[in-house]
């Protein structure tokens, strides 16, 4: 899955490079053309493309597999009688899913940076607020964005962990997690439900643009962290409530 994620910025970069000669033909997001001016943008563009579907998809697969995957392989009972302890097992599984979220976003950033440097000119980056920062500073910003997106996925990971404790069929938990991430984004786009938007776990997913200002606007980072923390607390508690007393019959 990490290889597939790494392929996204590479595909974008190669596609843009190949079609570079006829820019501005009106198709595709306008920001894609930005990367022809500066290879450092490839990482950010890659993340932007991955956030709505690809990253939640891979995180859903990993988080949905945590408990249900062990149950379907028949290893859950052996882990529990080893004894791993139920709370400890949940904690380890969640840390694993969170680590995957970090690895996934870093993969996109690193692959994007490498392919960007390889195919396009590297220049100081002009931020959204108009200032210019050096190459090193812009890499730091890229990593900040990766951190932001990792945090963004923590709530979804907790949801996946909880769904995974409900079933012995990993595919079911994975699909349910991914469906929830899509539903959340659809609801976020319905203006009639704007009262609900700040509570949707996907609400701040694309707000990392604030990290491309100077000085950095940390409010969206903070709001996102609080929201994801709340989702983590709720769904970790539900997962614990479900799993601690569950009869393991797999």
């Amino acid at each position, binding site marked *: 899955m990490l290889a597939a994620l790494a392929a996204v910025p590479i595909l974008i970069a190669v596609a843009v490079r190949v079609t570079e000669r006829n820019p501005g033909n009106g198709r595709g997001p306008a920001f894609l053309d930005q990367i022809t001016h500066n290879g450092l943008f490839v990482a950010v563009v890659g993340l932007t493309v991955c956030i709505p579907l690809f990253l939640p998809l891979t995180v859903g697969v990993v988080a949905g597999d945590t408990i249900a995957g062990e149950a379907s392989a028949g290893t859950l009972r*052996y882990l529990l*009688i080893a004894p791993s302890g139920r709370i400890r097992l949940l904690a380890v599984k969640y840390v694993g899913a969170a680590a995957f979220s970090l690895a996934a976003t870093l993969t996109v950033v690193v692959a994007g940076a490498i392919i960007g440097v390889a195919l396009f000119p590297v220049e100081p980056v002009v931020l959204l607020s108009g200032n210019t920062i050096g190459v090193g500073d812009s890499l730091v910003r890229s990593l900040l964005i990766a951190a932001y997106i990792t945090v963004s996925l923590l709530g979804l990971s907790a949801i996946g962990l909880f769904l995974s404790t409900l079933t012995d069929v990993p595919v079911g938990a994975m699909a349910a997690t991914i469906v929830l991430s899509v539903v959340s984004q659809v609801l976020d786009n319905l203006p009639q439900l704007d009262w609900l938007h700040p509570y949707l776990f996907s609400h701040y997913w694309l707000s990392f643009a604030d990290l491309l200002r100077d000085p950095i606007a940390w409010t969206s980072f903070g709001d996102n962290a609080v929201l994801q923390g709340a989702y983590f607390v709720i769904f970790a508690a539900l997962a614990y409530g479900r799993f601690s007393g569950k009869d393991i*019959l797999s």
Partner: protein
Amino acid sequence: MTDAVRPTSELAIETRGLTKKFGRYAAVNDVDLRVPHGAVFGFLGPNGSGKTTTIRMLLGLASPTRGEARVLGQNMARNVSAVLPRVGALVEGPGFYPYLSGEANLRRLDSADRYAPSSTRDARVASALARVGLTAAARKKVRAYSLGMKQRLGIANALLTPRELLLLDEPTNGLDPQGTREVRALIRSLASEGTTVFVSSHLLAEIEQICTHAAVMSVGSLVAQGTLDELRQVGRSRVRLVTPDLLLALPVLKRFGLTIEPGNPEGVASGSGDPVVVASFGDATLEPERIVAALVHAKVRVRGFDIEGASLEDRFVALTGEGFNVEH
């Protein structure tokens, strides 16, 4: 150790009124198991009689609907984490990651045990594999293992650290005859080291060969338990009578309350040509010599008279029924 714990501590496993219901159906109903320390305890029952569900409750994987399970002197509902490090188990077949080697699987499960020191992990994994004869296949992926090899790996997992109690659910499933013998030898050697071994099986011969104690489950209930000798004695003994005077003999046997077994396969004794009567009696206090005396008194020519003790198989069938169907 407090006095409250002491009285039960010579029992490795003790359950009281252990019941597990799935909906309205009781998979395990009011089971009172008593497994002494140091015993090799056979847990018998046909498929679907509640053996595995009982084992799951003994390991804290499932919680009882009613009743309690005490393992190694501690209540499983409250002290799971204190008991499990002292217990090794194979539950309902082995479960391993097919894409990892046998060795890697054991290392992973061992590292899940928070009481197992990581410094001696390599040595423990190697010796567990050696003990079940899997050293040569240690680095093969489990996907490439045969059923018997997976079963051995499951037993190796139960032996990773020294255990006071082993719960083995159908340990010889899928093993070839040599493997079955090896497992029996392994269980004997573990028992001689003082480990209490609780083996569930539907194979009587296996239980008869290695166990000191046994219990029989039928449709979720415990129908018998005790030492093997106790179990055999309770069974109905049989009288085997060879006589040409069949018509005279039958009323005498009936007078003693003996049941003539119909469809007797050996209707004629080989050699002599005399008919054979097989009759069973449930009253263990009945003295066989009185039957002979009465037969002779009734002018029955007794040419052969034999008492056959009930085999465990007879007992098993008597307790669990002849039927081949899974009962609900």
